[in-house]
């Protein structure tokens, strides 16, 4: 197990290195050169020279890379002139709110999607299965932002069941204290995820139900419920764990759209604003953070997989 862990962490580090190299290379692809990209089109030549030296853009690539990584590891992700804030502090401000949204949305989608996926597999080709399949297909095909727009239109603007905007506050506690305003954003966020989990769970459970070990369990006298929840469920869960790890980019993208639609003051909205303002420091810093989160997420998913499937461990 330890050997497995070490190997996986090693792989994650390699991926992290490659990714950060790619991001740095992207910076260099900016027209006008990387410093101009970082400072914007209105930078004066003095500023350009100063920052070129400061960031070491006149040095060879690998030196820049090491310097940049060093800075990041020290917690320095850049500084936003437009907001007059360091990127790190901006993250500290906005990340918790985004985490609330993402966490709530993911948990809701898992709590609904997994059991319904099992239900669909057990009662395949029933009315319930077809209805849920239809909903899943809709979930795949509807743009997240459009679904958000629809929800607001139907449940907030035309009717007044929920407020049209998400809670707007810099404090996480205040946000959590206004659950009604969180309902629509969370539901909109969770719709696509729900489609993903329930579909995969359905197919995974269906695959497992025809395996030989299920027949053995029945031959021992286990009831269908014991077979499904005691045997099949856990073995089907492995595919979800891997999927969870891989869907971090989806989670990030969803957060951006929902925060824009609902005016929710998290990292997604901040990123969008930074895009409108062409605030490169923020854009790059957030991207690096999201990438690192994805790599870590994949690592955790692999570890989770190993915990569920002993064949990987031993």
């Amino acid at each position, binding site marked *: 197990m330890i050997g497995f862990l070490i190997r996986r962490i090693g792989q994650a580090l390699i991926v992290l290195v490659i990714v950060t190299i790619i991001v740095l290379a992207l910076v260099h692809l900016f027209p006008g050169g990387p410093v101009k990209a970082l400072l914007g089109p209105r930078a004066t030549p003095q500023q350009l020279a100063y920052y070129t030296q400061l960031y070491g853009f006149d040095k060879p690539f690998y030196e820049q890379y090491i310097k940049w990584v060093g800075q990041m590891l020290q917690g320095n992700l850049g500084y936003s002139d437009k907001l007059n804030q360091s990127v790190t502090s901006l993250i500290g401000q906005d990340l918790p709110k985004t985490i609330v949204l993402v966490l709530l949305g993911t948990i809701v989608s898992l709590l609904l999607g997994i059991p319904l996926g099992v239900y669909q597999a057990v009662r395949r080709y029933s009315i319930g299965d077809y209805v849920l399949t239809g909903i899943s297909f809709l979930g*795949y095909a509807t743009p997240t932002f*459009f679904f958000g*727009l629809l929800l607001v239109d139907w449940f907030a603007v035309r009717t007044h069941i929920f407020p049209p905007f998400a809670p707007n506050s810099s404090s996480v506690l205040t946000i959590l204290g206004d659950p009604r305003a969180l309902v629509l954003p969370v539901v909109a966020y969770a719709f696509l995820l729900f489609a993903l989990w329930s579909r995969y769970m359905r197919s995974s459970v269906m695959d497992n139900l025809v395996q030989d070990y299920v027949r053995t369990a029945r031959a021992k006298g286990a009831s269908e419920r014991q077979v499904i929840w005691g045997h099949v469920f856990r073995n089907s869960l492995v595919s979800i764990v891997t999927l969870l790890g891989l869907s971090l980019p989806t989670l990030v993208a969803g957060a951006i759209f929902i925060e824009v*639609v609902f005016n929710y003051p998290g990292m997604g909205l901040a990123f969008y604003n930074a*895009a409108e303002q062409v605030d490169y420091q923020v*854009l790059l810093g957030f991207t690096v953070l*999201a990438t690192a989160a994805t790599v870590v997420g994949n690592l955790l998913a692999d570890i989770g997989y190993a915990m569920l499937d002993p064949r990987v461990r031993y």
Partner: protein
Amino acid sequence: MANVTVSADELAQLGAPPAKKRRGLVRRSWDVFAENRLALVGLGFIVFIVLFCFLGPVFYQTNQSTTDLINTMCPPSGGHLLGCNELGYDQLGRLMAGGQTSIEVGLAAALVAVSFGTLYGAISGFFGGVVDAVMMRVVDAGLSLPSLMVLIIAAVIFHPSPVVMIFAIAVFYWFAVARLVRGETLTLRTREYVQAVKVVGGSKLRSVIRHVLPNAIGTIIVQATFAVADSILTLSGLGFLGLGVSAPATDWGSMLSGGLNYLQGSDPWWLIYPPGILIILTCISFNFIGDALRDAFETRLQRR
């Protein structure tokens, strides 16, 4: 006890599996596909929407380049079947124009991503060893990038045209395709019929082209179908954020950039619902088709 191996005709009579009409693989795949009614509906809709977007303007001519500021936001009427948008453009005509862009970009991006991803994945899977390990680490890295964020950054910097959009979207999609094709190639490479080619003296190239790829083509086609839907969705997301193609060109997503205005009451419903609904219907149609194709290819292989 003098029984001998039976003559060919007797064998055919006695022991042959029930003689079905000899149908080609394409024909049989189509049969399974056609059983799936949803897929047929999906296919029908795709045909309809393509005709609508590309042939529609021939029959319903509108002016999509000059603004008409007198007629902004005009409601649906005889002259403008779906009303006008904020710049006076006819909305129905705009849907057709936008549809052309969305579908073109979607199809092209999917094509580029799947082609490149297939090649990459096949090479990686077939050579294996260190080559595979390195190539897959790159894919892992690509899959870890938050694609939307990088696309947004790229759109902000470059203000892309539809062509650039195609490649931008494809650049992020091919990673998933490469991983999938590599997995297929790895599986197929160890199949004995690929080894059999070596035994009769065939080259590795022959194995890949004649045996591995044709057997992987099913998965690839299914992936391509889903890729089109995903590309359309990505493009529409960027358009909504105001980072899609620039005016006067448009796509369904850009038409939705006034979405927030709509919620605040300033944009009318006919600007928002039609493009959104068309996106959903188009994507769901491709998904139906892809799902049915997946079933069709699977059952064919399982018929023993």
